């Protein structure tokens, strides 16, 4: 084997890779050229592109191929280490991972000492790469995956890593980032390879490689054809607006596929009648809620998609082993929504939460109007949003945003307790029956506040630096429950919270 000055890696390697990662041919070739020791190895290399465009997967696969490919010629001439920044908690962690991975890749047997800074990293890497005799064509590739997301990264981290290859000539550093700012490595002439997002045709090609299981009364070929046309339709309907990345398009397809093919299963349409199927399933294509990756995949019955990425028929495969549990869960959910917040919280806690909401969303100056019974037997209340906006559009000079649409304001604990005391008699039927004997400072009320705080429904503003006793009546708090929750909570006690809000 002659040592040619420029030699591309084996074509076989590239074609198998291109088959495994369709529509990424040019990127694979560029990457191979820039990494292969006998081609045009460079010092630093930046791969960038949005998520799920194959950056990490292609790099890993290519490097593995190149490493094993070179074994049969003249000993190993390429080694690599991939460090994922997501897994590194601190920059020290990153450095030690780099050293550890590099030592493992090079079968370096000396136990590495600790490595806290970039300079120590340079020393360690130099020991392994520079001061050990290697063959001339040897290259070491260090891949920093997602380095722009590194936690606790010092500002010099990226430039320093880029400089490592100046110290160690046989090192190639690959940075995988989402979108690099100009000259972020502070060094000149770094080749960049862009991994653009897929186009529609590419999406369809990729999805077509993995067709779902053939539908019962069709052939596999028919199903595959239908799947391809279906994927294109899903892309047109949803991809531009809601799901741009490959996993989310896949997810959308797998979520919609059972609904889309339901008429075929029912026997009303043939798999060839694509437009009829499309019309039948039109509703689902409008509905972006289906794309919401719900965290509960099992307990919810039909409308929620079972979201398990790659598998095209999730409903069949995902839940099959769980059948014994699923029916009971759905039954339970249908029978009584016991997990509702309103039924979980006891009366006092609910009242306190409502009082906190009122304190957060009403201005202090309106308190007298709302809660005082001094002048009138009945309270003078003004309608909330619905009345104010509906009538006042013509009159109001300056438009105001409804207070409840703004965030919650902070209030003093004592004010909430006062509202609680004022409102309790009116809202809690049992309290009136018992003659209102309980004071607002009984331990039970304190316990309810503490519980709400531990559930993060009430949040202390200022936190630790404000200091002091959590039961300090002068402390500032804020409600952390949304309008929908509070309205439901109020209705569970027969209170229309809207009546108690003043814009």
């Amino acid at each position: 084997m002659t040592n040619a000055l420029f030699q591309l890696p084996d074509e076989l390697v590239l074609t198998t890779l291109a088959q495994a990662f369709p529509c990424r041919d040019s990127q694979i070739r560029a990457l191979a050229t820039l990494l292969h020791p006998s081609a045009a190895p460079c010092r630093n290399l930046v791969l960038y592109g949005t998520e799920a465009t194959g950056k990490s997967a292609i790099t890993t696969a290519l490097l593995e191929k190149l490493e094993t490919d070179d074994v049969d010629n003249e000993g190993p001439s390429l080694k690599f280490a991939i460090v994922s920044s997501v897994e590194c908690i601190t920059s020290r962690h990153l450095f030690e991972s780099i050293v550890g991975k590099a030592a493992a890749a090079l079968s370096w047997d000396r136990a590495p000492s600790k490595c806290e800074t970039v300079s120590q990293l340079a020393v360690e890497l130099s020991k392994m790469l520079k001061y050990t005799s290697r063959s001339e064509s040897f290259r070491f590739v260090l891949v920093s995956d997602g380095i722009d997301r590194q936690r606790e990264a010092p500002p010099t981290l990226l430039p320093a890593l880029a400089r490592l290859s100046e110290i160690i000539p046989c090192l190639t550093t690959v940075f995988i980032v989402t979108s690099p700012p100009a000259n972020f490595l502070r060094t000149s002439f770094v080749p960049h390879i862009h991994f653009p997002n897929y186009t529609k045709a590419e999406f369809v090609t990729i999805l077509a490689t993995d067709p779902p299981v053939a539908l019962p009364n069709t052939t596999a070929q028919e199903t595959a054809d239908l799947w391809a046309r279906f994927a294109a339709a899903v892309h047109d309907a949803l991809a531009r607006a809601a799901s741009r990345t490959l996993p989310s398009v896949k997810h959308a397809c797998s979520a919609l596929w059972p609904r889309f093919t339901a008429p075929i299963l029912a026997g009303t349409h043939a798999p060839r009648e694509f437009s009829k199927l499309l019309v039948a399933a039109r509703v689902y294509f409008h509905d972006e809620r289906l794309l919401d990756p719900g965290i509960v995949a099992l307990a919810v019955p039909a409308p929620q998609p079972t979201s398990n990425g790659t598998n095209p028929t999730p409903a069949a495969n995902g839940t099959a082993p769980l059948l014994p549990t699923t029916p009971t869960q759905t039954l339970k959910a249908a029978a009584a929504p016991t997990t509702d917040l309103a039924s979980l919280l006891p009366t006092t806690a609910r009242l306190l939460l409502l009082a906190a909401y009122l304190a957060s969303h009403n201005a202090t100056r309106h308190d007298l109007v709302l809660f005082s019974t001094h002048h009138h037997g009945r309270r003078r209340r003004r309608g909330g949003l619905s009345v104010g906006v509906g009538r006042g559009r013509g009159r109001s000079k300056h438009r105001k945003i409804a207070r409840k649409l703004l965030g919650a304001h902070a209030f003093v604990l004592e004010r909430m307790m006062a509202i609680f005391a004022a409102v309790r008699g009116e809202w809690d039927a049992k309290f009136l029956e018992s003659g209102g004997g309980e004071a607002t400072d009984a331990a039970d009320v304190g316990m309810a506040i503490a519980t709400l705080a531990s559930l993060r429904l009430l949040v202390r503003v200022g936190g630790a630096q404000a200091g002091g006793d959590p039961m300090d009546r002068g402390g500032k708090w804020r409600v952390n429950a949304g309008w929908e929750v509070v309205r439901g909570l109020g209705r569970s006690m027969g209170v229309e919270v809207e009546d108690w809000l003043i814009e």
Partner: protein
Amino acid sequence: MAEIDDHTFQEDDHRAAYVSNPLSDGTAAVPSAGAAPRPAKRRRVSAKKEVVNGRSEDQTSGPVDVGFLPLFNGQESPGAVKLRGELFETAWPVLEGRIQNVLREANRNTLDEVSTFLRAAEGEKGKIPAGFIITGPNIASQDLLFEQLAETLCKGSQTRFVRLRSAEAPNLKAALKKIIRDATVRVAGDDEEGDDVEVSVGQDGRKYLDYDLEALHVSLKLQQSGRVIVAFQDSEAFDNGLLTDLIALFHSWHDRIQFSLLFGIATSVELFQARLLKSIARHLFGAQFDVVQAGSVLDSVFKSAVAGSHALLRLGPSLLRSLVERQQDQVAGIQVFISSLKYAYMCHLYANPLSVLLADDAHINRELLQPEHIEAVRSLESFKTHVEASVEARQLSHAQSLLDDDDYLAEQILEQNQKRRDYLVQLLRSLHLIAATGLISTPFTDLYVTALSEGIDLTSEKASVLDPLRRLGPNEIVSLIHHLLNAIEIGSPELDLQGWGPDADELVASLAEIRDEVEALVERAKDSRKTLKSKYSAQSRVLRTTVVAQKVQLSRDTATLTDEDREFTEAIDRLADLFSRSVNCEPVTSRFLHEAWVYDSKSPYRDVFVPRPGTTLSRALSRPNDYLGCACCSKANGTVTATMPTTAVLYHLYLEAGALINVADLWSAYYALVSDESDIGMDERTALVHFYRGLGELRAMGFVKQSKKKADHIAKLKWI
């Protein structure tokens, strides 16, 4: 021994108010509390040694004599004191064990579901299985559940279980450290808190940072164990960012370490999901699990610990009602209920000398009853009613002997033990029969409390069982009788009620007879192609519409009853009669000597479990003489006088002030009250010292604070 001295209580410990008198130069503002020497500081002297020794001592001398003091002003015999102590020591652990059993049993379903889910979710590629366990807002009861989860999930399989609480994991590093330590330490075996070095050094001698999941990976590989389950016990209290980071990290490691997550959720999964980023939520493959709701747990705990025949002491209706209401209205979990129960036992057996009568017949005899016991019984309310009742019933000699003859009374007292047991059995059987009919929807707790306070009398107006019973159709009657017979045969394992078939021959026979009769009637009615009905069923009155000359006429028609129907009606009447005769019970307060075995006092319970510090403070400050009992302030009826303690005077002035109080004004008002011209005539310097001290105390109690709005002003904090 000096330690024993430490354990006895000082006189001052249990007084209603402790009068501190730091100003010894007697300005008469506070009456002197007597020059008692400062109590010796209680120190735990060699606590460890005591525990080691205490074990063996406890066995011999019994833990009984630790706390139980002789009552009747110390006249109570040691035997009775010991018996009371023993009663508590034997009764409560049994009950507690049963309660724990019930609680564990209640979680069983959830445990099974969770483990099934986790096992099934193993095959899920690229996603982290996540179980969302809706535990309800009561954080105290989550502990048991997660303990059980750890036990169940670790059993047999090579699984590591890590429990995370928000307090233990304030940030990412701390959380990871805890996860790694907990998941690896258990592997290392029993040496607790195994030294970190061993954990963090891999096989090739590489040292890992203590938050590096690589260490966990290596350790798991060495142990060849598969998965790590991380349980977030109070997921609401975790920081959003922390959860996001952790889930992203777990997902990135998922191909090497199999993580499964469990979240204890107090509110709802929707709220939880709203906190997560969508990109993070995509990594989770979740299922939702409900824990048995607090209400039904309360019901079963109530059945086994309060109503069940194993319960030694009966809680009275008013206390029980307030306990149950507190469970519904307040954030008080089942744990609070249990400790309230324990407290009631303690109160009764510790403070009521008559509680010795709870002991079974083997332990209690005539010698144990002192003259004091007899006298105490004679002063009871139920004794009076009993004597009055026997006078009414013309049993004069009985009443006479009760009043005069100690031995006769003692005999009667000893007899009550059996009567109490009979009463309870009757009560429980009646309740069980009522529940077995399935005709009323009242929860068992309410039923029980009502039965205790008002008794069970089905013939009275209020009882709502007989009416629906009469309205039943023939088939339902047959199945009802079947249920009743079943209930009699089997009893109720929840209530520890055994079947009482042999005791109720007559009832069983009559029930079976009625059943046979009704069945025969049904057959006969079927032959004559008519449906069997009684005069109570709704069809007996029919509204008829007739159209005559384009006018609609409504007429009420009493449907005629056939002979079968009449017989059926008769059978129903007999059944109702039988049922109301066999299901009855009188209120517990009407029992002679019920004070000995029913505890129904709310006040110590409320003081201990629902204290009201704010109200207490403000009352003490506004009327200090009620607590101090001094003569000088007695004429101040809620108004302010100079002789009150400074803090109380300032509190009165504080109540009159607005939101911002000028300290100079407060001082001049105070000085005007106590200055030379007043009754106590304080000079300015002393008054100033008092003033500062009083203001400092007000601030410490949280009434005022420094205001930033205005110089030299303090802000009022408490308004209600």
